């Protein structure tokens, strides 16, 4: 009897439960009722099974990767570049390619995304243009990333084929900018910026919306201008939310492959952009830093794709090792996001 009561009523609504239990209106003895209750319980277990099967898939996914990488993943894997020999291949070039790509993407996507969000949330009146921007944003978020790749290929890499022959703008000893850009880190980063921009904007908008308007009113009442209010009150208050959103968008960019392949990023690269293959070289040879964004590159997910596609099982451990490194980087980023959210939840100011 008690089991049928808990079946009929939600366990988490205690007050309903107590009322119903005292009334005791359920007749578990009628066969029709028993059938309905049995059916209901089967349904509950089906839903539970569905939920836990998703969890099971995650476990299977991670297990298959960790089992495959066993015996191959070592420190040498992150210290060496790609090779045709599965025993020699490493992910160093992809790591540095991703580093430059993501740094540049962040530098472009964060100001543009947060700026757009501030405009939409703090400035935009309900005009046609602003409604258009908002509708457009939700549609952009649903565009497949490979389509952004075609945009990047045409606009950034080839620049509409406007240049009959390649033009190089160079400041001797400092930088050489080829026009059209070609399959360089910069072109990849510009494409990736467009891919994650909708995510950054939508996350930042939510963070800004969560700031109570009383803060704005108080600041304005004290004579601050609109920008002063945003700069000194609203943005600091929304910062944890914005940072979390930005990190999630960056994680998406780290794993994104299709647009990079479309713009023609290298699949097999045995060099790091500008030859910077260790963090020390960033300090000892700073003149190379400017050249790195204009060098060819590969990225971690592209290398993983390449290894996963190799026929036979030789490269399976290599691909799995690459995936482990990629997941570690993602874990690091998401760990930072969780930590920021935790810090912010403790230091709430109102």
């Amino acid at each position, binding site marked *: 009897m008690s089991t049928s009561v808990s079946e009929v009523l939600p366990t988490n609504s205690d007050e309903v439960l107590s009322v119903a239990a005292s009334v005791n209106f359920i007749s578990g003895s009628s066969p029709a009722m028993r059938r309905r209750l049995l059916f209901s319980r089967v349904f509950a277990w089906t839903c539970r099974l569905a939920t836990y099967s998703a969890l099971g898939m995650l476990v299977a996914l991670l297990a298959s990767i960790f089992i495959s990488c066993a015996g191959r993943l070592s420190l040498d894997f992150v210290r060496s570049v790609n090779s045709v020999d599965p025993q020699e291949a490493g992910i160093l070039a992809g790591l540095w390619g991703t580093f430059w790509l993501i740094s540049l993407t962040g530098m472009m996507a964060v100001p543009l995304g947060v700026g757009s969000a501030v405009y939409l949330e703090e400035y935009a009146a309900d005009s046609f243009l602003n409604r258009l921007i908002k509708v457009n944003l939700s549609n952009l978020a649903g565009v497949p990333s*490979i389509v952004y790749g075609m945009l990047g290929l045409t606009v950034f890499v080839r620049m509409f084929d406007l240049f009959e022959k390649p033009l190089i703008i160079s400041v001797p000893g400092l930088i050489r900018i080829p026009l059209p850009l070609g399959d360089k880190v910069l072109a990849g980063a510009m494409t990736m910026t467009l891919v994650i921009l909708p995510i950054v904007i939508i996350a930042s908008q939510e963070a800004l919306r969560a700031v109570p308007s009383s803060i704005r009113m108080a600041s304005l009442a004290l004579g601050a201008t609109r920008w002063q209010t945003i700069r000194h009150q609203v943005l600091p208050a929304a910062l944890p939310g914005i940072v979390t959103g930005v990190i999630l968008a960056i994680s998406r960019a780290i794993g994104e492959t299709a647009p990079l392949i479309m713009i023609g990023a290298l699949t097999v690269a045995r060099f790091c952009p500008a030859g910077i293959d260790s963090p020390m070289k960033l300090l000892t040879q700073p003149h190379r830093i400017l050249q790195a964004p204009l060098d060819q590159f590969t990225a971690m997910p592209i290398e993983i794709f390449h290894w996963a596609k190799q026929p036979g099982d030789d490269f399976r451990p290599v691909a799995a090792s690459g995936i482990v490194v*990629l997941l570690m980087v993602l874990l690091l980023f998401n760990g930072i996001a969780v930590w920021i959210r935790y810090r912010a939840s403790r230091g709430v100011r109102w």
Partner: protein
Amino acid sequence: MPLSRKTASLFQRRSANGHEKVIWASLLSCALISILTTVGIIVVLLGNAVYSPGKSTAFFEEVSVWEFFTDTHWKPAERHSGTELSDSATGKPAGHFGILPLLSGTMMVALVGSMVGVPIGLGAAIYLSEYASPKERDVLKPVLEILAGIPTVVYGFFGLHFITPWILQPVLKHVFGIEIGVFNVTSAGIVVGIMVTPMIASLSEDVLRSVPRSLREAAYALGSTRFDVSMRVVVPAALSGILAAFLLAFSRAIGETMAVTIAGGHKIMLTANPLAEVQTMTAYMVHQSFGDNSASSIQYKSIYAVGLALFSMTLVINIASQWVLRRFREVYQ
């Protein structure tokens, strides 16, 4: 929270200096980049697929739209150095350009994906919203988020190196006696389904939870079981949001690239066999971009035509999803 019109106008006057205007203008130009992106996508796709203003010709200026939609073969002739591609008599490029085989590949993967993702996602959403204790939900939701955050190349690896050899091949061989290849629609569809599951689950759970509690209590008071409450009251009340989530997931499955390229295969053919190897629209674009076709070749331009078809499909489905959400929303006070 936008300020009220009155407050806004109040300090519009105060901020009517140059500095504030510069900031307003630069923020607006940030926001305009998203519009520019959309315009860019449309211009790039149309400019290479439909009508090219320059001296180069667009895809549909060489291949008829009729052929594109009705021909059942997609065989962009391989480029051989020095050989002339086009048929000299008609001036038409060699090869067949009917998108149906690619479209069928995409649709089959998306359908298998939906068959996996929809029941699991909806089941998980109902469980999380109606059954799970708050503590259980706090554990399960982040797990689903992890599933959503895993890059798609990883899913491709999982499909090709785990689902096919360790699940599909043994099961099909021992139970049905069928041998299947390493690349097949089913494994690609299953991983796409796993990929869209968290999306369906979290979007659906949000709408299920927003159904007012009074509805549930009224149903219980009328003697409903929990099944009746979930499936006959809460789910119908949230149906518009759930359908919108399904549509978004379907559009995501259509646009999914890396997993289907890795697990689905290369063979372009019109088939309805879910155990066959197929190439989807997205996989075709990836494979073509690895080839070193010159920018004036028809193979290169065909990427844009396929891209245009892909973009239009996802756009239509996304708009349909927003329409469903608006049109069939039940509003509760």
